[in-house]
């Protein structure tokens, strides 16, 4: 096997077709997974002995938090690939990630506040985990603001890609903040390997993580299609796609 598969990812019409073919499958599986996981987490899982039913917030909070970080990492890698190899599709992919990432960072913060109030007695504290997640939201805003502020698409790609790559330093800070500093926040939920979580509580969470990843795949592929159409509107493949 050569590098042909890699070059295909750099081809806008190939990616456009890939998105049209696979986004519905990713989206359908994600919807099914989320519904089953919600039923498992809200109805089948027993209440926590300390947190009672408040612990059920974990089924939307932890997968959103995972996405907020995974999307940023994806965006930074795509931006780096775009910078190094000057691949247009990579820049388009990074741009497609940002709004989704910003939304799930906001959901992480919102559900975290709603969980913090009954458990810690406060919606917000300037705690390392909470503060670094808030910084992540500002990084997404900065990335999108920078893109919107620069008229020339190539310059916007380059400048925003540098910001995305530099900002990736925040991802391990968020991830390990609970280990490095004293934090109100509980340590990361251990799901694989040795775990003290009951299986009835654990499987809906595992399924939700998987379904959220599929969901991101679907929504990102659809947004990528919009990015490609905007950038390539003079290309002959766009004409063929729109006529066909």
């Amino acid at each position: 096997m050569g590098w042909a598969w890699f070059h295909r990812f750099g081809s806008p019409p190939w990616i456009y077709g890939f998105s049209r073919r696979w986004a519905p499958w990713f989206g359908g599986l994600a919807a099914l997974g989320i519904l089953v996981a919600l039923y498992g987490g809200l109805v089948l899982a027993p209440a926590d002995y300390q947190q009672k039913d408040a612990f059920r917030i974990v089924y939307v909070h932890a997968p959103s938090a995972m996405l907020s970080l995974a999307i940023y990492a994806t965006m930074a890698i795509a931006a780096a690939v775009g910078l190094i190899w000057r691949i247009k599709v990579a820049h388009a992919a990074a741009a497609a990630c940002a709004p989704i990432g910003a939304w799930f960072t906001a959901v992480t913060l919102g559900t975290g506040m709603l969980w913090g109030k009954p458990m810690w007695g406060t919606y917000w504290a300037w705690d390392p985990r909470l503060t670094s997640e808030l910084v992540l939201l500002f990084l997404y805003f900065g990335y999108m603001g920078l893109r919107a502020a620069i008229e020339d698409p190539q310059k916007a790609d380059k400048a925003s890609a540098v910001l995305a790559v530099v900002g990736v330093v925040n991802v391990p800070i968020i991830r390990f903040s609970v280990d490095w500093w004293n934090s109100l926040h509980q340590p990361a939920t251990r799901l694989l390997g040795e775990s003290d979580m009951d299986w009835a509580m654990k499987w809906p969470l595992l399924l939700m993580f998987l379904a959220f990843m599929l969901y991101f795949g679907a929504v990102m592929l659809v947004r990528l299609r919009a990015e490609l159409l905007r950038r390539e509107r003079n290309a002959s493949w766009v004409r063929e796609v729109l006529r066909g």
Partner: protein
Amino acid sequence: MDEFFAMSGYAEYVWPSLALAVGALLLNVWLARRAVALAERDARRRLETTS
């Protein structure tokens, strides 16, 4: 059923959390599809004026 909705007294925190997450999931699908529809419309318009 009432017991389920009461969430052992945490209903005011659990249900808004779920509403926020599910709302964001649905909204992002809608936003992405709208972005494609708008980009298609613009590309089509351009195609009509140039050809």
